[in-house]
């Protein structure tokens, strides 16, 4: 059960990353900046 939950959480997290940084709000990846 725990294994399924962790894997599911991981997949959701990956989906969230893709959605937040690529799909939602900004299609412009160029606006990101590195800081060092």
């Amino acid at each position, binding site marked *: 059960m725990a294994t399924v939950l962790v894997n599911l959480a991981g997949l959701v997290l990956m989906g969230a*990353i893709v959605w937040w940084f690529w799909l939602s709000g900004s299609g412009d*990846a160029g606006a990101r*900046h*590195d*800081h060092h």
Partner: protein
Amino acid sequence: MAEAEMETLVPALTITGASCQGCAKKIRAALEPLTGSTDRVEVDLENQTVALPADTDLADASQRVTDAGYPAEPLWQPALSVSGATCQGCARKIRNALEPLTGAPERTHVDLEKQTILLMPGIDRNEAAERVTEAGYPAQPLNEEEPAEPEQPEPEPNTAHQTPEPDKAPEVEAPAPASHDDQVQLSVTGATCASCVATIEKALMSVRGVTGAHMNLADNTATATGDADPDALVQAVESAGYGATVIEDPDAADEQKQAQDRKQYRDMMVKMAVSLGLGIGLMAYGMGFGSMMISDANQLTWINLGILTFAVMVVTGGHFFVGAAKAFRHHNANMDTLIALGTGTAWIYSMVVSLFPGVFPDMARHVYFEASAMIIGLINLGQALELRAKGKTSEAVRRLLDLRAKTARVIRDGEEQDIPVEQVRKGDHIRVRPGEKLPVDGVIVDGNTRIDESMLTGEPMPVNKASGDEVSAGTLNTHGSIVYEATRVGSETALAQIIRLVKKAQGSKPAIGRLADKISAVFVPSVMLVAVVTALAWFNFGPDPRVVHMMVAATTVLIIACPCALGLATPMSVIVGVGKAAEYGALIRQGDALQTAGKLDLVILDKTGTITEGHPAVTHVHAAEGGEDELLALAAGLEQHSEHPLAEAILERAKSDGAPKRSVIGFEALNGKGVQGELNGEPLRLGNRRWLESEGIDLAGLDEAARAITDEAGTPLFLARGGRALGVIGVADAIKEDSEAAIRRLHDAGIRVMMVTGDVQATAEAIARKAGIDDIRAEVLPEDKAEIVEEMRRKGHTVAMVGDGINDAPALAAADVGFAIGTGTDVAIESAAITLMRGSLHGVADAIQISRATVRNIHQNLFGAFIYNTLGIPIAAGVLYPVWGILMSPILAGAAMSLSSVTVVTNANRLRLFKPRHQSETQEGN
């Protein structure tokens, strides 16, 4: 050019009258100041349109093209009015919402100031309005007729240098655009890479009233043009995640920046000591006295230590978390995100283990507080070292700034008084004694001296200056006492302009750097994905304790993946390279020029003033009877009445040889023949062979001397008194002493050298032979030079054009890299990509060598950064574990990450030691 092509250019202007590649060149050249490079302008001759980058100011662009002789109009029309679009994020959303209609986000202009959306013709405005409204910004279609036929933009004579404003078109009915030239300068902190520059400029542009924004990474200042409220500008920069203060006194900016850097360095070192101290302490405690595994005995201690770690993380690494949060809110991810996620994950895991050890299997009850603290410490250390090394890279500018004199000894009302240099006015007479620096530009009115101009021109020998000669601020009076009249003061001086130019070029990005930016932009979110995948892999397939391995591997991936090296690779080298070139008297206007100059394989030289001195001088004096001085005295007597350049050459020579001018009466200039007068009742004639022979004078005895003159591309002038030939004087535009050596250096660098000149073939050949030129084009009209440059480019050469920057302007613009030589005037600086401050061709060779070294340095940096990440990330993810059982510690990852950026900065600094080869020849030549 491959990198430049990656950018999408959008058809933006309609033009008329552009019929050939020459026209296309002119248009590209006219738009270059706006787009930064001719490669970012595409002229479609068939459809009579010009494609530009999406953020180009179309009003300015169409004005420039119209001024260049091709009436132009923006293609875009204001199509929708919109409300609620307040920032660049909104603009992006609107562009994306319209993408199904326009085909690409770049095909929509959003004018935030006027709350208007501009679209290309043919797009359904009602549907567009619907889509924008759906995206959360209520939009209305604008009346189609009124702007359908956009009026010719009214000429605005003073807008030539207005900074570009994205998303603006002239025909929008709205309050008049701000055309104020007010500038607010901000000192910015926290901007460390090229991408930060873009973010800050965008933030400034979103402020109402701003017409232009430029962030300079070299000195961490941002300049906003327009009539915006300074506080609003500061707020905009701060909300973008950086610190900003208004610079009240630009002169004090440098000191302010240095003080800021010192303070920042101290702060970082303190933070480093605190966090690293805690990390080491925790490690020592865990390994020496207690255990890093939670047990009933040490649980409370670790909870307390966890709270202490949290406090230290907030104090010494809070800026990472704040930066990450700000970026996240804007759908961005940066280095702060990785650091915050990495250290945050380690701390949260450790805290959960400390609070609820029972939830975890025995082997997984390990705490990693020390990792969080040490990573933050190491990164602070890396940033401090980077800051210090970076300070050194901008030394070139600082050295130029140091050239400025603080005070001037002005003679007012007959009295000499020392006043601050800022108070010197045009027309003031200034006394400068030997060993003193000149405070402003001017013209000598009294005295003569030798002036060391090496700091501005790279010319190593002091130059003789006498009354009437121009002198520049920042140069050193080495010899006599002079009085000179101030002609340019404050920001108008050549020195001030050079400083501005160097700073601007240092902040600019060559194409290769833009590529690195694009990579690093998608890099951080990708790393986050890799970290999750790594975690899941360890969880599903790894050995026990799986939870620990999963956490360690993911944290290490986040920490080691540092695009900082990638982001720093280009700008650091550019800063050093541009500064180095300035040291040798080559002012580079654009980072792009630096990159292209490294690739040159053909240099086209203008003859007059470039290879040669640019003005005729007497090269031969051959007397058939009497002495040479007598010949010169007679010729000077005749020529003193003439204004012909050849006359000047003869008078100059007579003066320097101390030959007194004979008094000649009845002077007459005969066009195409020469000059004549009367001396003691006898006719005296100076002119060409045909004329004198037609007067019945026998010149046979002078044939050999005349041939020697023509062989060296000179013009023979025969002098006859009565019916006797007295001698011949050769006048030629002499080849500069060091031209030949400089051309040899170009050959050594594998570059072919071609000369273009309006002279006849024979003269051109003579000069080419003497100077060692490979190829010549003679009898070329000035307007055809650009065509020759074009032709060579079509043949596949990467071409440099070297000229004097004024009549060669079209050819300079047509070339891949234009070099304006020896003038240092405003016109030259504006028209060429590289301006050589001294008149020597060695500057071209120096600039090319420095460019090659810089590009090599950039490649090394990018290669290093790339290798670091391609090796580091898989190792961090644990690919070595199945074979050797090696799993990298997050602490080691933190150290490696800091090391990578320090390495890049250090490598860039290595460029400072670069010396163009054969520099000794330059000195000999001068």
